[in-house]
């Protein structure tokens, strides 16, 4: 349990009535390179502590860094995807400070010469509007090791009896993406923050440069926030909330900090410039390190590395490898699939775009793909606290299953109700749709004699309804179809039954 106590906050609406939030986001992304940024060590997640280390990433005396070319390429591709300018010449810099999980007691980073700068990312909001996030810079750096504080109650260093350090993470390539201050967001600030991180995550995933798993720390977000009075254009003092590591938390942290700042300011107080810790469980932030302007990292150009100077040709060649931007792709797919805006937004919000794309490519209809991936399985995934793609993968349910299921319907073996039963069986792990249909004995009765007999019986039993149909009220046939299906114990093709009823009554 957190020992932290919540500070006073002003209700969100009240805060926004008096103040404009200014938002800045710093996102750290671990690159998915096979080796570390400055040595040849492996980067696999979850390996035995200190098993992926060497003299270089342990910072042993005499060891020297060598730049991972793949890391630089990824950085340039990220910069290009964020519409940034790419530096034709830039250097690494040393950021000097002491910490036990940082082997050299300086972090090799970039300072005033980032590899990419001055870009933007357009973010779509729930109401269909677009907000342009200006990108200040994206720069390359290395990750630190990981400290595990043992003996305390919170896992933080406070109260711990000792600490263990795992240097497997030390030297893993990171890209830090920093936005320019976002103004004018108003009450949409929490939504914009979340949407930006989500959009960035999708973009990085599409680039294939990172697995962007926020829960594993391969994508980490710091939220900088300040408030200024409604009539002011001067930024207030900001707080930096560190390691806000889920999309939902990004939104909550922004909302919380707006309320906290507003409470301080409206009571005549002064916000402290400091880093703050985000508490997932209680949804609040607490004070961390105070960040005075006196904090001095004594940056200077890293003399052990030569400058990075990508040629224009290299940059253009990398630009050619960029995938279609996710927003453009969504527009293209929506048009190809014929979805309404509402349908498309639901599909995007449920993270179904890739799955539906694969399913349609495998041969299913767009409508069918959407139907099967957003019905029963979505309910189950939600119950499991997961999303559909992850849940489907855990069940080994694939686009091929949907294609097969749909073909059983279009081929006339199953009707819709039967297909739903088959899908339940597939989700229950009973096998492929065909195997489930076989095992459960689900098959439309193809014998028109039996169906005709059932139709005749139902017409005879419902002369009033039959007369209405004869009089031209075709929609009245629905009641008869339902009874025929009941007669057939569901094993009939409703369309065929309808046709037979109409044939019997109109000829």
């Amino acid at each position, binding site marked *: 349990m957190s020992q932290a106590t919540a500070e006073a906050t002003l209700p969100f609406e009240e805060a926004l009535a008096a103040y404009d939030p200014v938002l800045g986001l710093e996102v750290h992304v671990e690159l998915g390179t096979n080796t570390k940024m400055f040595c040849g060590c492996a980067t696999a997640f979850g390996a035995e502590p200190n098993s992926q280390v060497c003299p270089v990433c342990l910072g042993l005396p005499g060891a020297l860094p060598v730049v991972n070319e793949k890391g630089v390429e990824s950085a340039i591709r990220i910069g290009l995807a964020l519409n940034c300018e790419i530096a034709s010449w830039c250097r690494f810099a*040393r950021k*000097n400070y002491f910490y036990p999980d940082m082997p050299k007691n300086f972090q090799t980073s970039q300072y005033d010469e980032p590899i990419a700068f001055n870009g933007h990312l357009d973010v779509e909001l729930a109401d269909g509007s677009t907000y342009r996030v200006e990108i200040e810079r994206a720069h390359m750096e290395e990750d630190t090791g990981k400290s595990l504080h043992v003996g305390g109650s919170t896992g933080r260093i406070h109260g711990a009896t000792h600490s263990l350090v795992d240097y497997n993470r030390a030297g893993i390539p990171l890209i830090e993406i920093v936005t320019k201050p976002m103004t004018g967001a108003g009450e949409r600030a929490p939504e914009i923050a979340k949407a930006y991180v989500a959009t960035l995550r999708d973009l990085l995933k599409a680039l294939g440069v990172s697995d962007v798993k926020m829960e594993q720390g391969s994508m980490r977000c710091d939220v900088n926030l300040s408030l200024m009075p409604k009539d002011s254009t001067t930024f207030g003092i900001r707080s930096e909330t560190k390691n806000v590591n889920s999309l939902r938390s990004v939104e909550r942290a922004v909302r919380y900090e707006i309320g906290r700042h507003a409470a301080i300011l409206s009571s005549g107080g002064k916000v402290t410039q400091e880093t703050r810790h985000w508490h997932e469980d209680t949804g609040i932030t607490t004070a961390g390190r105070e960040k005075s302007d006196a904090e001095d990292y004594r940056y200077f150009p890293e003399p052990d590395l*030569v400058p990075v100077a990508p040629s224009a040709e290299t940059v253009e060649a990398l630009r050619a490898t960029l995938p279609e931007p996710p927003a453009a792709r969504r527009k293209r797919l929506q048009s190809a699939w014929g979805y309404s805006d509402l349908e498309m937004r639901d599909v995007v919000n449920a993270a179904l775009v890739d799955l539906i794309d694969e399913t349609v490519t495998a041969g299913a209809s767009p409508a069918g793909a959407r139907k099967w991936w957003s019905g029963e399985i979505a309910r189950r995934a939600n119950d499991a606290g997961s999303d559909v793609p992850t849940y489907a993968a855990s069940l080994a349910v694939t686009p091929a299953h949907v294609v097969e299921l749909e073909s059983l319907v279009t081929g006339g073996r199953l009707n819709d109700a039967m297909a739903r039963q088959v899908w339940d069986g597939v989700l229950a792990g009973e096998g492929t749709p065909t195997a489930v249909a076989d095992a459960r004995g689900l098959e439309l009765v193809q014998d028109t004699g039996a169906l005709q007999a059932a139709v005749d019986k139902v017409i005879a039993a419902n002369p009033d309804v039959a007369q209405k149909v004869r009089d031209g009220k075709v929609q009245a046939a629905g009641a008869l179809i339902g009874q025929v299906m009941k007669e057939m114990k569901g094993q009939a093709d409703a369309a065929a039954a309808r046709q037979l009823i109409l044939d019997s009554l109109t000829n």
Partner: protein
Amino acid sequence: MTNELITASAADLAARLAAREISSAELTQACLDRTAAVDGVVHSYLHVDAEGALAAARAIDERRAARESLPTLAGVPIAVKDVMTTKGLPTTCGSKILEGWIPPYDSTVVTRLKAAGMPILGKTNLDEFAMGSSTEHSAYGPSRNPWDLDRIPGGSGGGSSSVIASFQAPLATGTDTGGSIRQPAAVTGTVGTKPTYGGVSRYGLVALASSLDQAGPCARTVLDTALLHEVMAGHDPMDSTSIDAPVPAVVEAARRADVSGMKIGIIRELTGDGFQAGVQQRFDESVQHLVDAGAEVVEVSCPSFTYALAAYYLILPSEASSNLAKFDAMRYGLRVAPHGIDDPSAEQVMAATRDAGFGDEVKRRIILGTYALSSGYYDAYYGSAQKVRRLIADDFTRAFEAADVLVSPTAPTTAFAFGDKIDDPMAMYLNDIATIPANLAGVPGMSLPSGLAPEDGLPVGFQILAPAMQDQRLYAVGAALEARLLSAWGAPLLHSAPDLTAAGKGA
């Protein structure tokens, strides 16, 4: 017999080993016997590895007996400056903070020595982390000058200069950040080269100032120096600043010893005032020898050299303050618990260890560098120093348009006495006035003996500087001068050094 083996040149020993007139084991044993006899007074070594050296010697002898084709210097033993990592052998850098540290890896230079079949006799003394000009800053006590045991053997590489001047080894490695190979060579009557920056890998060389450090060869003759230079040099993918180009033909140049038609530039700012009379006299005579050998003399001016010392003592401490941050008691080396603190924090252990483990000169430079890099001072100090560095490089470029090589005395004086400058850092720093410009510009330099100063009978060094990547010019000029001097003297200079075994008995 033994006496003759230890005074012979490496080139001569290599020829006799190749002809199987002598074995590496007997040669190595002769060196070790000499160490047993004289190192008690000279104190060149911090660590002698008799067992390892003899095992390596026997292995080479066996390979030679098997008629294997072996590198030129195979079987010739060597001493290694204790700032280069040696797998399985202590590496202290002359500091208490690394006492007992056994590196798990070899520096690239050591890897190359081993690949060349050269037995490693041991690790030589130095000023702590190569900061000094006398070895008085070694945490393990100073080395002594074989010419006068009350005088300094130069620094930081006083262990390597004295080990070859006292005939304990025919060859040694050095590192030169501001003259640490050339000044010790000058005051001990030996030869040493600082190659072009990037010519020899720095991987495994415990960094003092990354942009200035360069490893190089130490020997008693110009040809021996060239032979070792060729072994040490060459591109190393583990060092980003290593030059990816063929090693200059230094051995060939040393053998040809041809200066006819070469233009020798005398640097106006590095002669005359401030140079000891006997030093200047021997310098002038050497220049005349080169003229006699067919060279032409021109005078050049390098006005920015006046600011070299000031720039150097900002750049070096700045880089050193960051390079030495890794010595924090967390992963290796000394760990000291602070007095009177129960359950100290990591930071308190770091502070106590650094206080106990670093000597005064190291602390002085860390403080200087930390200050120079501080925000608000960076531009005035580090920034200005980098501009001066550029101007010095420009001076060299202009001077090399007028001359093929530049020459000066290596140091303003002959070896000074212990204690003379230890309490006056500025006086100590001024000893490197003639050697520092080459490090700032990255150009190669050599020192070789030009005789004994008449007033004190101590060796004088003659410095040759060449454009970057033109290291072979040093050897052409050095070998030509050496040949002239040798015929003038009738015997190598070191033959007139005192008999150390007598001194040892007397002490």
